[in-house]
C-alpha cells in the first residue's frame, strides 16, 4: 500500500477506524480536536460505523468510555492536558473496572502558566493509574499503536485500558508519510472484541457495584491490576511479533538505536526522541559511539529490557520532557530504580530537563549533552541535573518581567 501524508491526529483517527470501534465518547481540546472532528465526519458520512456521543466534560467522557467498555463493546476516546487531568478521578476508577479501551492523549504541558505545546507532565500524571501507556515517536507509530493497543488491552491476560500518547504539534499537526493498512489485514490481526466475562448486555439490565473494602481485599484488587499490567510485557512482545508478521513493521517495548557498540546512550520518550536519533547519526559521523534508547512502553515499565540494553554502557544521559516539581526528571528516577543493583549497570546517569512546554532542543544541545556525559563517564563525577535553558532565553524572560514591572508601577501598585 502506498504511504500517504497524514498528521498524527489523522493517524490516530485512522487507527480507531481500522480497529472498527463501536463507541466514541468525545470532548474537544487543543491539540486533540482534529481526531474527534475526523471521526465525527466519517461516522456522519457513513464511511465508518459506530456511534459518537459528545459529553459535557472529560470526567463524563472517561466514565462513558469505561462504562461502555464494561458492556463489551470496543471503545475509543481522546483527550489532552487539562482534559486528562479533569477526568483524572475516573482514570483511576475505570482502570479498576478492568474494562479495556484505548484513550489517545495528545501531550500538552499543564497550567499554570498555560501553554498549547507539548511536554509529558499530562500523561505522566496518569502513570500510576492502572492504564497501560504507549509513547509514540512518529505518525506511523501512532496508527500502528492504536491497532496494537486494542489487542494488548483486550487480551484476557491483561484486560486493562491503555493510553496511546502522541506529542501535540510535533506529531498532532505534523504530516509525515504513513502507510494505512488494508482493513482486511487489520481485521485478521485484530478480530472482534470478545468481552468474555464482562456482564452487561443490551436489553438485559444489570447492575455492577464496587464494594467499599478494607485494606486486605483492597490491596488484593490493586495488586492484581499491577500483576496484569506486568503481564502486558509478554503480551506486547507477542502482539508486536504478530503485527510485524502481518504488516512488516516491528515495534519493541524499548527501541534501541545504534546501541550495540555505543558507550554513551541518550534515553528519551516521545517524538523528541527522533531528534535525538538525528543527533546520534551526526555524532556517529564525528566518530562518537553514541546510541539512543526509547522506551515505547512506559507502563508496564520494561525494566528488564532496559537493564539488558544498557548493560556495559559507560553512561546514560536521560532527557526528561517533564518535571516532578521538587524532585526532577521522572524518567531519570525510573531508570535509576530499574538499574540499581543490576549486574553491569552503567555507573553514570546524567539528568537533563528539556522540551518543557514544547521548548525545542537543538542539535547542538544534544551534542553538548553527549560531551558532558562522556566527561562524567571519564571523571566518574556526576554533574547536577540541568535544565536546557540559554542565556538568550533568560534575557527574553527578563524583558517580559521588566514590562510587567513597569505596568504594575503604572497601575499604582507597589
Amino acid at each position, binding site marked *: 500500500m502506498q504511504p500517504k*501524508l497524514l498528521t498524527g491526529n489523522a493517524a490516530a483517527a485512522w487507527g480507531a477506524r481500522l480497529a472498527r470501534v463501536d463507541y466514541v465518547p468525545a470532548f474537544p481540546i487543543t491539540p486533540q480536536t482534529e481526531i474527534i472532528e475526523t471521526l465525527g465526519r466519517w461516522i456522519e458520512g457513513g464511511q465508518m460505523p459506530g456511534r459518537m456521543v459528545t459529553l459535557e466534560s472529560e470526567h463524563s467522557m472517561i466514565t462513558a468510555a469505561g462504562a461502555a467498555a464494561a458492556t463489551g463493546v470496543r471503545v475509543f476516546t481522546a483527550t489532552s492536558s487539562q482534559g486528562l487531568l479533569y477526568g483524572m478521578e475516573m482514570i483511576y476508577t475505570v482502570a479498576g473496572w478492568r474494562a479495556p479501551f484505548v484513550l489517545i492523549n495528545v501531550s500538552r504541558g499543564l497550567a499554570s502558566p498555560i501553554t498549547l505545546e507539548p511536554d509529558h507532565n499530562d500523561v505522566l500524571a496518569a502513570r500510576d493509574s492502572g492504564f497501560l501507556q504507549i509513547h509514540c515517536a512518529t505518525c506511523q507509530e501512532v496508527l500502528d499503536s492504536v491497532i496494537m493497543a486494542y489487542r494488548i488491552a483486550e487480551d484476557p491476560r491483561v484486560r486493562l485500558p491503555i493510553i496511546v500518547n502522541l506529542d501535540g504539534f510535533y506529531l498532532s*499537526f505534523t*504530516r*509525515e508519510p504513513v502507510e494505512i493498512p488494508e482493513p482486511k489485514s487489520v481485521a485478521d490481526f485484530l478480530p472482534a472484541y470478545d468481552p468474555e466475562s464482562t456482564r452487561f448486555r443490551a436489553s438485559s439490565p444489570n447492575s455492577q457495584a464496587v464494594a467499599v473494602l478494607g485494606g486486605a481485599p483492597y490491596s488484593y484488587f490493586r495488586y492484581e491490576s499491577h500483576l496484569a499490567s506486568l503481564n502486558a510485557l509478554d503480551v506486547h512482545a507477542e502482539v508486536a511479533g504478530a503485527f510485524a508478521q502481518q504488516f512488516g513493521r516491528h515495534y519493541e517495548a524499548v527501541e534501541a538505536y545504534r546501541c550495540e557498540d555505543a558507550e554513551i546512550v541518550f534515553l528519551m520518550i516521545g517524538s*523528541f526522541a527522533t531528534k535525538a536519533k538525528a543527533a546520534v547519526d551526526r555524532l556517529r559521523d564525528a566518530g562518537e559511539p553514541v546510541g539512543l534508547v526509547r522506551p515505547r512502553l512506559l507502563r508496564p515499565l520494561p525494566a528488564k529490557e532496559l537493564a539488558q540494553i544498557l548493560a556495559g554502557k559507560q553512561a546514560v544521559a536521560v532527557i526528561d520532557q517533564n518535571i516532578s516539581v521538587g524532585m526532577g526528571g521522572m524518567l531519570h528516577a525510573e531508570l535509576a530504580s530499574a538499574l540499581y543493583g543490576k549486574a553491569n549497570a552503567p555507573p553514570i546517569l546524567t539528568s537533563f530537563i528539556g522540551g518543557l512546554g514544547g521548548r525545542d532542543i537543538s*542539535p547542538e544541545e544534544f551534542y553538548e549533552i553527549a560531551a558532558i556525559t562522556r566527561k562524567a563517564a571519564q571523571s566518574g563525577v556526576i554533574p547536577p541535573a*540541568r535544565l536546557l*535553558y540559554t*542565556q538568550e532565553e533568560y534575557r527574553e524572560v527578563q524583558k517580559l518581567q521588566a514590562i510587567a514591572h513597569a505596568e504594575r508601577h503604572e*497601575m499604582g501598585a507597589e
Partner: protein
Amino acid sequence: MYRIRFHGRGGQGMKTASRVLGTAFFQEAFQVQDAPRYGAERRGAPIFAYVRASRTAINERGVINHPDLVAIADDSLISAPAAGVLQGIGPRTVMLINSHESPETWQHRLNLDNTILIVPAEDAVTDRADLPFAGMVCAGAAARLVGVIGREALATAIREELHTHGSGLVDRNIETALHTYDLMQDHANAVTEGTEISAKSYASPQWIELPLENAGSAAPSIHAAATSTLLKTGLWRTMRPVIDYDHCSHCWWVCSTFCPDSAIRVNEEGVPEIDYDHCKGCLICVAKCPPHAIEAIPENAAKAREEKAHATKTPDR
C-alpha cells in the same frame, strides 16, 4: 534536506501552501514533513508553516531554525518582530517575497546580501486576510526554486490538497501556482539543500544555571485589570449581527443576556446596542431574538455599506 518556511496571515493559505509543496515533493519521491504553527488561531494573525523534504527518512522535528528558503506571502509581516520572518536567516537563505517592491529595495531595507526574489503582489485588498491566492503564489514559486519538482507534480499536489473544493477553484489555483512557477524559471535551483550541523565543530549552547528568584516576579500572574477591553476581538468577525430597530420589540434582555461576550448593552431607553469592537460574530443573538430583528450580514458587505453611507452623507456646513 530542504528546509522551507512560509510566512503569512491567517486566511492567506499558508498551511495549504506548505501542504501543496509537501505533497509535490512527495510526488517526486521525497520523504516529507510539513506542519503549520499556529499562534492565535484566527484570520489576520501572523502564522507560519514549514516543509522538510529529503531523499532519506527525516528525524529532525519542529520549527525550522535554519531555512534554505523563506517564502513571505505578506510583506507587511517582515517588520513585525513577533512574526519571526527573519528568524535564523543565514547567508545562503533565499527569500521569496510577495511584494510591490524590488529585490534591491528589500536588500537595502533589511541590510541583507541574500538572494531576494519577488513575486509581484496583487493589487491591494481591504482585508489583508483576503489576499487572493497568496499562499498558492508562494507554493508555485517555491516548487520551481528548489528545482526538483515538475509542473505535473505541482498540479497533482494542488488537486490532491484542494479535492474537497469545486473544480473551478482548483483550476484557478493550479493556474496561479503554475504562473509563478514559470515566472521563477530563471531561478530554478536557486534554493539548495542545507547541510547538517556537524557534531565535530559546533557552537556550544550558551546554557545558564537558572537562578532562584523572588516569587513576586517568578510567578506567572497578570495584575493589570480589564486588559481584554484593549483587545479588539471584533477583528475576528466574518459575519456581523445588525439590529433592525424598526422590528426590535425592546424586550430589553434576550440578546444582551445570551451574548457570551457581553458585547450587547441595553441603553437607558431600553434599546440594545452591539459593541462591534468586541462582538466576535457568533450570531447567537440572531438565533435568539424573539421577533427576528437581528440580521447577519457578511463583514465585508457591512463595511462596504458603512463606507457608502459615510460617502453619501451630506457634510454639515
